[in-house]
């Protein structure tokens, strides 16, 4: 038919072009030297640092080559990518940077390698960090750097940091009343993981825990109710915490303190060098850090954050990958990281008298003291779901949709149901 030919020809042309594009696009270069891939933070100074350390490792281990696979630092995005890759049993990347709460999940899923056979020495790491890399009593990752929640306080508003919540409330109220600052204390209160870390610190300040020693859910205890009530009262009754914090994550909190709008801030160590930058910060030279205060019957606690390095269980070069992991977590490399980026090393021995003092913005002894109080979040494969349950109820209580005791009881019940359903208790 006269009409079908042009249409037919056009269709064939389209399909051929499409096929050609597909084929051309899928051609990749062949492989030469053995290549290891490491996935992790590759932004700014961290990227330069990693390149340097990797270059040294390559020089010491020819003909191995290492490539960095940049992944977004936003927790959900990186987690989602890892899930896709590992679910597809990809052999790349060989080394993975994990958030401290992912290790149990990935270990249980069979996605990261059991490092028992390499017999890593975990005794040099902080006990909390060592605890967070174990699943079923075996090590699945090595701690890379640690983060802890700290209380930043204004040295021009008080002589000494408060040790108890009552002291803190008093100082904060006085500072607001004197008109020096609009806010007393700011912390991360948005409905996300950061809220759980803040809650953890209040909780340990009241002597409570999320899971008790036997692994049973303990988040509806009196201590927990006290802690949550204190958090809510700081916003609602004492008015030392602005209700705006309920949508704030780390950066907004940092900026509030940086713009000299708050007497106290609860944040991670990353903020310290940024606050010291006199060009941008209004509080440069006018602040210091301390451990979070405690309440009655509790002790000051610091939520443990940070990252770990693990080996992909499907990697085709597990021994080389482990060598890289071991190298990057050696004391010398950790020290270099502290100097370049300001992240706290995970090895306790580095905090004695030594070069760390020059590298870290805060006194190593003070840092070590805070890290020794680190509280680990429950090490369980279902931590993400657990945390979500807790976040929801914490946020509801703080936004006055629920009362503390019934809210925490609902959360605890939901957590118990979760453990029952998955027949898991914390290891």
């Amino acid at each position, binding site marked *: 038919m*006269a*009409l079908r030919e*042009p*249409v037919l020809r056009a269709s064939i042309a*389209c399909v051929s072009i*499409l096929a050609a*594009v*597909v084929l051309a*696009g*899928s051609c*990749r270069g062949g492989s030469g030297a053995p290549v290891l891939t490491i996935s992790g*933070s590759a*932004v*700014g100074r*961290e990227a330069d640092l990693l390149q340097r350390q990797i270059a040294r490792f390559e020089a010491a281990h020819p003909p191995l080559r290492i490539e960095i*696979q*940049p992944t*977004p*630092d*936003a927790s959900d*995005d990186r987690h*989602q*990518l890892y899930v*896709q890759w590992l*679910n*597809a049993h*990809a052999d790349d990347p060989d080394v993975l940077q994990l958030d401290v709460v992912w290790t149990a999940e990935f270990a249980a899923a069979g996605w990261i390698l059991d490092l028992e056979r390499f017999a890593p020495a975990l005794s040099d790491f902080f006990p909390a960090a060592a605890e967070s890399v174990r699943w079923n009593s075996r090590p699945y990752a090595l701690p890379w750097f640690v983060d802890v929640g700290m209380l930043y306080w204004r040295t021009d508003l008080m002589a000494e940091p408060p040790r108890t919540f009552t002291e803190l409330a008093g100082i904060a109220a006085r500072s607001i009343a004197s008109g020096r600052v609009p806010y007393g204390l700011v912390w991360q209160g948005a409905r996300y993981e950061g809220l759980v870390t803040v809650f953890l610190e209040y909780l340990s300040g009241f002597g409570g825990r999320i899971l008790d020693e036997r692994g049973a859910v303990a988040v509806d205890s009196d201590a927990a109710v006290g802690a949550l009530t204190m958090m809510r009262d700081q916003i609602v009754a004492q008015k030392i915490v602005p209700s705006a914090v309920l949508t704030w*994550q*780390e*950066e*907004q909190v*940092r*900026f*509030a303190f*940086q*713009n000299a709008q708050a007497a106290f801030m609860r944040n*991670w160590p*990353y*903020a310290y060098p*940024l606050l010291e930058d006199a060009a*941008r*910060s*209004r509080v440069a030279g006018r602040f210091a850090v301390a451990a979070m205060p405690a309440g009655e019957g509790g002790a000051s606690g610091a939520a443990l954050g940070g*990252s770990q390095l693990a080996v992909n269980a499907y990697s085709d070069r597990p021994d080389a990958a482990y060598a890289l992991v071991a190298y990057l977590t050696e004391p010398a490399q950790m020290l270099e990281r502290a100097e370049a980026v300001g992240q706290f090393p995970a090895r306790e021995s580095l905090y004695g008298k030594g070069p760390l003092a020059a590298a870290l913005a805060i006194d190593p002894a003070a840092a070590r003291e805070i890290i020794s109080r680190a509280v680990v979040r429950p090490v369980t494969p279902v931590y993400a779901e657990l945390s979500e349950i807790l976040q929801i109820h914490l946020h509801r209580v703080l936004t006055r949709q629920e009362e503390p005791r019934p809210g925490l009881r609902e959360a605890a019940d939901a957590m118990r149901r979760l453990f029952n359903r998955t027949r898991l208790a914390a290891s």
Partner: protein
Amino acid sequence: MMPWSRRLATVGSVAIVAAGLIPVYWTLVASLSPEASLFTAPSLIPTALVFDHYRALFAGLAFWRPIRNSLVVAGTTTVFAVAAGSLCAYAIARLRFRGRNLVLAAVLAVSMFPQIAVVSPLFLMLRQVHLIDTYPGLVLPYMTFAMPISIWLLVGFFRQLPPEIEEAALVDGASRLQAFRKIVLPLAVPGVTATAILTFLYCWNEFLFALTFTLGPERQTVPVAIALFRGQYQVPWGQVLAGSVVATIPVVLILLVAQRRIVQGLTSGAVKG
């Protein structure tokens, strides 16, 4: 039309558009301001203008690469989707054939699955055929929403055209294809252009597929590149906003050129009894 109504219309549209542009203007101002000022009382009038964020974009970050990738992927997807889609839409809109409604329903159904659901099987599939981190590896998944948009919208536009002109041409002995090419398409230029612009913008801003199906800066698109700016806690707001502004420039240029075609029908005189 009465001159006062035209003036009212002009004033009205300028007002609405201007109101809608205030956030865009704020983005521009914010991208030129020092970061700390973002979190103090925001103002529409910048106090200090800094170009650091833009310098950082091109100095260290080679931002032109994600822009190139976005242009290629969005452009290719749009061309294929609109070309194949307009043929299919014409068939659905004008030709009576059994299964017409089924085709339309199937096309629409594909776009109704949440992206998060299909991203995993798509990843597995693309990995099997080694299309991860390639241009086709993005264009093909983008078809899952680009094709339905194109077909669905074009069916609407084709149905709006009066069929008499086409019928007259057919009676005069033209073939279907000729009627399609010479009569329907010129009449439908506004609709086809609008569809193309919208498909392009959908692809331009798409994030999840772009993040999952690309591995490195050679193929990552603009939304992914911007997401990679941030550190674990620290977000370089200035850079993010500057990146967004820069990423909008190619789009604005394309829009400026393409939008003329949307109102072409009014002046082309094609729609005459």
